[in-house]
């Protein structure tokens, strides 16, 4: 047992430890097979394709906690629930995705009304640990600095037990946060924490510099967005931008903080009905459609604006945090090349 908060470990030792842990846990690991995605660690995976560094996988982290379709009730009788038998560890989660889990916690764990807590989300959340990792090799869609986040974990959320920073000698710099998981690492090298910290700062500074270059391409950032929305809501430029959207809903499905859903019932047999919670999208006309064919946002432009207002205005008013982690999935997914950073720069020009 070690009490060190910051130490280095070889990547091989780290992966060996994960291998041991997979009896007890389902271990989700970022795996780059041409396309980076989380895979459950098993013997068939090629160890060389495990990519702890780099940026977040394109796949949406929210689906591991808030699946696109989930049976949430049966009635009249409640079926016995499938209890989670194995806890999970998500390895290599980035700070942007941790931030979005924090946002989902605010929505689904519902501190304001504990009786309305989503017990399914809570169960997955309680039984999942995170080992976060720093970003490097960032893409030009990466926008964490624009929304005031960092490319590494500085404020760990609940159950984020440690962070790893990969350095160039295939060594990992590990920082332990509050760790109640019982997961420990042996084989740590005998180095001074101060020395490791300095080395880690150098690695982190390099990524920050790259992100600063991206940020400098834009005139506006998160501190401007809320005001710009309110000043420009009636400007015709919104229509030009909204008209480019092909309404594929990729940005919404890919967004780790978009959390709208619909409850849908189905008759399974004469004795059983099921209720499902499925992802919904505020870009659909049917999203808020009521009986009598009435909707508060019949025109697409209003639905398009509503989403931006929700992320950069309403979230701030309600929980004092923006509903955007800067992960850049919406930019990467969009076939019409709508980029929120450019959109806000345009709004700045016309305000």
């Amino acid at each position, binding site marked *: 047992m070690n009490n060190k908060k910051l130490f280095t470990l070889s990547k091989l030792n780290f992966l060996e430890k994960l291998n041991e842990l997979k009896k007890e846990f389902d271990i989700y690991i970022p795996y780059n097979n041409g396309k980076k995605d989380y895979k459950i660690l098993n013997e068939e995976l090629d160890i060389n394709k495990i990519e702890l560094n780099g940026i977040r996988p394109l796949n949406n982290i929210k689906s591991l906690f808030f699946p696109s379709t989930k049976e949430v009730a049966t009635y009249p009788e409640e079926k016995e629930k499938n209890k989670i038998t194995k806890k999970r560890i998500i390895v290599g989660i980035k700070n942007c995705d941790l931030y979005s889990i924090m946002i989902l916690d605010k929505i689904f764990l519902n501190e304001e009304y504990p009786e309305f807590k989503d017990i399914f989300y809570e169960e997955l959340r309680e039984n999942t640990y995170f080992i976060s990792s720093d970003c490097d090799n960032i893409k030009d869609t990466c926008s964490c600095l624009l929304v005031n986040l960092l490319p590494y974990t500085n404020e760990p959320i609940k159950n984020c037990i440690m962070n790893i920073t990969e350095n160039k000698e295939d060594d990992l710099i590990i920082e332990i946060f509050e760790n109640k998981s019982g997961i420990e690492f042996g084989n740590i090298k005998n180095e001074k924490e101060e020395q490791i910290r300095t080395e880690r700062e150098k690695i982190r500074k390099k990524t920050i510099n790259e992100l600063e270059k991206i940020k400098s391409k834009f005139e506006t950032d998160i501190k401007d967005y809320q005001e710009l929305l309110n000043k420009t809501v009636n400007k015709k430029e919104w229509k030009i931008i909204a008209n480019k959207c092909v309404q594929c809903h990729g940005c919404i499905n890919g967004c780790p903080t978009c959390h709208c859903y619909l409850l849908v019932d189905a008759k399974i047999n004469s004795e059983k009905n099921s209720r499902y919670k499925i992802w919904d999208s505020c870009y659909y006309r049917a999203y*808020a459609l009521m009986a009598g064919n009435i909707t508060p946002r019949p025109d697409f432009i209003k639905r398009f604006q509503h989403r931006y207002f929700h992320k950069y205005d309403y979230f701030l008013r309600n929980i004092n945090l923006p509903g955007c982690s800067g992960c850049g999935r919406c930019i990467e997914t969009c076939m019409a090349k709508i980029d929120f950073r450019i959109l806000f720069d345009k709004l700045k020009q016309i305000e």
Partner: protein
Amino acid sequence: MGKNPYKPIIAKIKKIINETPTIKTFVFDLKEPIKFKAGQFMQLTVPGLGEAPFTPSSSPFISNEMEITILKTGIVTEALHNLKEGDEVGLRGPFGKGYPVEKFENKIIYIIGGGVGLAPLRSLIFTLIHNYNNYKKIFIKYGARSPEELCFKRYYDEWSKIPNIELEITIDKPYPDWTGKVGLVTTLLENLKIDKDETYAVSCGPEIMLKFVTVKLLEQQFDPYKIYLSMNRKMSCGMGQCGKCNIGNIYLCKDGPDICFGKYQDYFDLFC
């Protein structure tokens, strides 16, 4: 694991009252009592089909039985209208904050309803009647399209007899044998002499009516923070998560649905 907020409890339809050709009141027998405040709403499930939100029309002082008055207007309400006494439905709730009855004490209250909009207001009226001396004056202004569309006719005499209640009814267009007032409900709101600090308004009805009622009240110097509108939107979860009922940053389901106009008057897509 805690209580599952998505699961409905089963309730049996004890009685169905035909209010108008398109409106029925369903009386539900509750296996477990449901406590609610006037203005809070329930999600009512037609088994296997889906849910829709409704505010009970019965008195909150009765908790082993609940009445919900429903206009046939969409898929779920049509299925509800086809149900018979003895059939079972599902209920979740109550949700929302309900009417701020405590603020109404010693004040003048205008209750303005249109069509089936009198249903949630009836629950409020029952609440106010329970302690009617606590309020300075209660005006009920109610309008419907035609005499046969008027809801809860059996209560009008009873309500009118209460000393500080004044009930006025209108129908949209003249009808043979109708001797009462004719005109939209807003015509009952002309020349109100109000004391801004002492007067509240509560309104429920079609959204277009709410819009014109609000305009009328504001013209007469009503305080926007003392006008409570039932701005009902699509509501799926009822718990401030699913996003469908948003007016700006407000989740009508948890912050309302009867929420003062002042709080959202500046929102750009206010009325449908």
